[in-house]
């Protein structure tokens, strides 16, 4: 069996959170899953999280109030030692080349995956990032 990870799912769509959670479970990729409709709640979680676990964040791009890029910018304000425990993948339905380019080049984002979540692709990227 593949290595299992702790996942934080950030998406303003309850439906997509449900789909992504289910997909990770069906493919037995997750040790734990936490879901956040509001990216600011996820930031709050990271701030107060005090275990030494590592997490994979699947982050939606287009969200009201704070979008995915805004989340990453806020995330980078955290202590570097803290940041190390979180690995951010963007997960979006965008086809905008500007967004994709920005996601690929932005520090703090490992890569961008297109919706719907493809578990094989995620596994491949996790291997490439030496996380699995």
């Amino acid at each position: 069996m593949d290595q299992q990870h702790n996942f934080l799912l950030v998406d303003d769509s309850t439906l997509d959170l449900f789909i992504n959670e289910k997909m990770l479970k069906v493919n037995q990729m997750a040790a734990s899953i936490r879901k956040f409709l509001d990216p600011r709640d996820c930031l709050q979680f990271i701030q107060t999280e005090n275990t030494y676990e590592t997490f994979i964040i699947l982050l939606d791009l287009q969200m009201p109030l704070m979008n995915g890029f805004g989340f990453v910018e806020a995330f980078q304000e955290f202590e570097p030692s803290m940041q190390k425990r979180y690995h951010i993948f963007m997960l979006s339905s965008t086809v905008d080349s500007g967004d994709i380019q920005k996601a690929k080049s932005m520090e703090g984002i490992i890569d961008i995956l297109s919706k719907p979540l493809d578990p094989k692709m995620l596994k491949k990227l996790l291997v490439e990032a030496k996380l699995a």
Partner: protein
Amino acid sequence: MNINLPINVLYVDDEEHNLYSFKANFRKDYNIYTTIDTAEALEMVDTKNISIVMADQRMPIMTGVEFLEIIRIKYPEKIRILITGHTDIGAAIDAINRGEVFRFIDKPWDADYVKNAIATGFEIFRTREDLKKKNLDLQKANEELDHFIYSASHDLRAPLMSILGIVNLSEVENEVEVLKQYFSLIQQSVLRLDSFVINIIDYYRNTRNKSEIKESIDFKKMTAEVLATMRYLPNFDKIIFNSYIIQEEVFHSDPIKIRIILNNLLSNAIKFQDPAKEDFIINIQIEVLNMGCTINIEDNGIGIATSQLKNIFKMFYRGGIMNSGSGVGLYIVEEAVHKLLGEIKVESVEKEGTKFIISIPGKN
């Protein structure tokens, strides 16, 4: 030519009697500004909204060509006309090459010729100004379009990708009950996409369609029709609708715009119900009086934070995390209300509810 627009003409000449006779000849046709001083002339161009600048060639401090060259550099849009008493080929060449003058007028001038020059010059000036304005409008429309495509592509694609995600899940699912649940999720996603498509069509009907249709509006009938299209929305059956529609006279208006208003406000009222409340209530109050009408749509839903109230009519603004729509609905509503020369107001308290108050004047 637009006769309402005053034509402001500036004439610079060091010989004052020329200025007097010019003014006497043309003051009935144009707003004439005159001066013997080129420095003052420059100031006038700046402050008097001059469209046509005329200058005599032979002046002591600077020649007419030199003056018009300055005008060309500083105010390229102004129409420049040179007046000269001596046919001087050098000045003519300079006038064209350096001053890029529009006309060359011989002294003593012929009144009809001067009028013709001013009229034609002004026509060019106005056309250029129109073009500049149209260019700006076009630029704005293009920016809006970019913004629109960007947001619309997300709102069109996101529900489709959700559906695809559920289909992928159902491939590895055997439980009938779970599959049924998946179908209902697909249904939700389809409804969301459909409401976005309807919004976009409304937007185009509303903003791009210039034709004005007027029909007699039956509010009771229209409200019932609009609500009938929403019966598949979640929680619809649990909502208590209180309708007070008082219409004893004919109301003439654009049915498409009125429908857009009712459609968006009612679907918002349904969508943003507060799950914490025991009863979901929507009050619909419509009154037609003195040819005009007032429409009040009130709900006891989740409400809107005071800090967000100023943004709700902006295009693509999405209020919150819960059930976020496309961000187009209220934008279209405001646009429709304004096109009907009406007013829209909103009162809202978070967790208590929201009330939209619209008044549309009767048209003659």
